[in-house]
């Protein structure tokens, strides 16, 4: 019930939001139009100043846009009509839109238009007005942007506005930012007794606009008390920066780890559960990535991934089943031969892709909803990496459910533990083998979709991951999904922790050397399989 009512309320809200500008501002539009027309009659800039103030007082969604256009000298009258337009470019045939409604009006020659002129005083005034409009905006994002633009360009004229806003600002974060902005102004004060507490208040802010002045104050302020306060404040900032750095490293490590897990988790099924070495695993990932590319040739980029994931699973699962039925089933119990045969398959797949799609890399586009950055607390992270971490967790959870909660999973585990006994109980082991291999291969394809968002898609994509993913499986302990998870994450984090100290390539080498040593010490991995299956 609760969800239904809230859903209804949401719908109603949505409808209001859509209607609001139409209903409320229908009347205001004409007032705005006549106000704009008065600019034409304005004799001098004093009159225009008054008009600009009137314009800013209008509660209309286009107010900010109009002021900006006026400051940029992009506001025009149509010479033969009474319409005010905004020029969108500077071509001789200018693209214009209606100033009030924003309706696109096509292109007009520059001669048909009269520019509304502005001088520098007017522009400075408009900038201030825009800042206070931003501060007063109902949207917290715009308010934050207004304060941040003040930080970049602290203008004494804006101080009063900030102070006024500080009294009424409901958002706690913006309130803090406002305090910092005002402290930044105080830091430039003549009075040392004002500067010292301001420096203290600025501690912990990592923005370069705040840290820079603070660093200067700590270095060469005339007053020793201010220098001291700035130094103490800076230690706070540095500590915070360091913590942010660690958090960032950790996130990069998690992100790399989840890529490793995605690459290794399919192997954990084929190698771990079935004991089959599939050297073509990397090439199956490559096929998944190419599937994504193909889907993007047909579908808009934003919709491609939800289609590519199941399709890649299907394609690579079928290829995997073909490999199992055609080659691997003749080689059970001869792991070294399996290794060689599947390596041959990997060469064939590589060359096939090279012949069909050309040896050049293909660029796979990132959908809008995956590009850009997002704030996780104080940490700014790229959205595609975050999505891939989530995707990795989802794939892992799904695989876990399939293996633990479905009939197929039960049969897979039974065959893995004791093939003869499982057959005696009526499990068709040949079918289970094919399906398990298909499952592992399908997951490789899904991993390929994720990889296509991070790296170049080319015929060598798989080769770069095959050694790594085998190491993850072996490190975690063969036949243990959780081991793969822990191993992938810890290797990813270890790699990224080493990187700043040693460089990317050396970090990779060090991790490999560590793994080689680790396997000597514990040949069965972190979490060895126990019980009868382990002795085979």
């Amino acid at each position, binding site marked *: 019930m609760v969800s239904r009512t809230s859903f209804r309320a949401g719908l109603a809200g949505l409808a209001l939001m859509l209607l609001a500008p139409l209903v409320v501002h229908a009347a205001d539009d004409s007032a705005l139009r006549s106000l704009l027309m008065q600019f034409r009659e304005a004799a001098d800039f004093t009159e225009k100043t008054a008009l600009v103030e009137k314009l800013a007082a209008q509660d209309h969604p286009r107010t900010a846009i109009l002021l900006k256009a006026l400051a940029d000298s992009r506001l025009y009258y149509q010479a033969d009509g009474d319409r005010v337009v905004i020029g969108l470019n500077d071509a001789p045939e200018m693209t214009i839109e209606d100033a009030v409604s924003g309706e696109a009006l096509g292109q007009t020659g520059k001669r048909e238009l009269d520019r509304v002129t502005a001088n520098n005083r007017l522009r400075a005034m408009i900038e201030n007005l825009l800042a206070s409009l931003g501060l007063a905006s109902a949207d917290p994002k715009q308010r934050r942007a207004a304060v941040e633009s003040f930080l970049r360009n602290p203008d004494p004229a804006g101080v009063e506005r900030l102070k006024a806003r500080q009294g009424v600002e409901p958002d706690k974060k913006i309130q803090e930012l406002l305090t910092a902005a005002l402290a930044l102004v105080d830091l430039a004060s003549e009075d040392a007794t004002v500067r010292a507490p301001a420096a203290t208040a600025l501690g912990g802010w990592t923005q370069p606009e705040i840290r820079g002045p603070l660093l200067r104050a700590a270095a060469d302020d005339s007053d020793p008390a201010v220098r001291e306060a700035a130094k103490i404040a800076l230690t706070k900032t540095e500590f915070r920066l360091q913590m942010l750095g660690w958090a960032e490293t950790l996130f990069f490590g998690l992100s790399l780890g989840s890529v490793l897990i995605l690459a290794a988790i399919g192997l954990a099924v084929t190698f771990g559960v079935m004991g089959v*070495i599939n050297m073509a695993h990397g090439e199956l990932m490559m096929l998944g990535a190419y599937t994504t590319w193909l889907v993007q040739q047909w579908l808009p980029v934003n919709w491609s991934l939800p289609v590519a994931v199941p399709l890649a699973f299907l394609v690579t699962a079928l290829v995997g089943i073909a490999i199992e039925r055609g080659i691997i089933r003749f080689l059970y119990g001869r792991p*070294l031969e399996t290794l*060689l045969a599947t390596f*041959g398959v*990997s060469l064939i797949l590589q060359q096939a892709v090279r012949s069909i799609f050309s040896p050049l890399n293909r660029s796979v586009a990132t959908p809008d909803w995956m590009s850009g950055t997002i704030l996780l607390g104080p940490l700014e992270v790229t959205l595609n990496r975050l999505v891939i971490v989530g995707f990795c967790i989802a794939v892992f959870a799904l695989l876990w459910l399939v293996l633990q909660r479905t009939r197929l999973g039960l049969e897979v585990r039974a065959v893995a533990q004791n093939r003869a006994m499982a057959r005696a109980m009526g499990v068709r082991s040949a079918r289970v083998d094919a399906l398990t291999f298909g499952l592992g291969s399908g997951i490789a394809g899904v991993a390929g979709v994720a990889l296509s968002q991070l790296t170049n898609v080319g015929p060598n994509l798989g080769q770069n991951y095959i*050694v790594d993913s085998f*190491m993850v499986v*072996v490190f975690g302990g063969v036949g243990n999904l959780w081991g793969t998870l822990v191993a992938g994450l810890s290797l990813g984090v270890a790699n990224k922790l080493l990187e700043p100290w040693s460089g990317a*390539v050396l970090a990779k080498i060090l991790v490999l050397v560590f793994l080689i040593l680790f396997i000597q010490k514990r040949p069965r991995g972190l979490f060895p399989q126990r019980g009868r299956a382990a002795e085979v």
Partner: protein
Amino acid sequence: MVLPRWLLADRAGLVLLAVLAVISIGIPVLNLLVPPDHPLHLTAYTVTVLGKYLCYALLAVAIDLVWGYMGILSLGHAAFFALGGYCFGMYLMRQIGTRGVYGDPVLPDFMVFLNWQELPWYWHGFDLFWFAALMVLVVPGLLAFVFGWFAFRSRVSGVYLSIITQALTYALMLAFFRNEMGFGGNNGLTDFKDVLGFSLQANETRIVLFVLSALALAGGYLLCRWLVSTRLGRVLVAIRDSEDRARFLGYRVERVKALVFTLSAMLAGVAGALYVPQVGIINPGEFAPLNSIEAVIWVAVGGRGTLVGAVVGAVLVNYAKTWLTGALPEIWLFALGGLFVAVTLLLPRGLIGLLRRREATT
């Protein structure tokens, strides 16, 4: 001439040695004495290519010793090959002297280019031929011994060992790609001028290198053949067939394995050292995991556990590679991949196995 019994019993080996003897006399004759316009004349290029095959064959023999007789599938033997090659390449690099592009009497060109002021410590001594020749054996051998000692003592075996040998060569490849390592980074070592004062461009030097490769292959073959006919050789086969049983019978399995693995790595190093002056370059690409696996497939094609098969496989596959990459470059990887699949599925005993079976049935 009296031959030891282990050699007399090995008919295929005698054929191989006879062939090697014939070519190491015949090919110099065809190259040096037959006039260039005669149809039987062999160009210096062909001699070099054949010499390259012989180096590959020696690498294949080294792999067959550990895989065919001891059951260790090493996917990192190209690393030992490349290390031997780098050791000898360093000697050739020091021989360039002032003839390099920058004319520095001590530093190789790439170090001058990177603005290095003095030779790194590990480059010292490589201006002496005997030291470099010794290092060709010591460096791969030492790595193989340390690696093998730890791996075999912890009883890492089967596919696990294969995977970590692959990781080893992969890590070495990444390391040698780094300029800071001091081995020329991406470009490797190249632009060699002469060896022991003989120009590498001269026909005669190439002939001598070819004959040396043939001798090294014959020597490597005889060493391995002798080894597998001794009591130690029997232990090897016992380990391959049942490691636990060999251990319970009282053999120190890990010592035997480490010893033979080291010997095999040294043979691979020698092959690499002979390879470098003939092709004129050594770069980190030689460490690529694909190279090691390709070498394994030579052995599989010829028939593992036969030693002669390794030589046959290496020469045949590489001949096919030279021919196909020239004539139909698109097809080569298809063919190689197909070869992997076909040999494991249809020819588990290789070409030699096929011949032997035919002999047995007739």
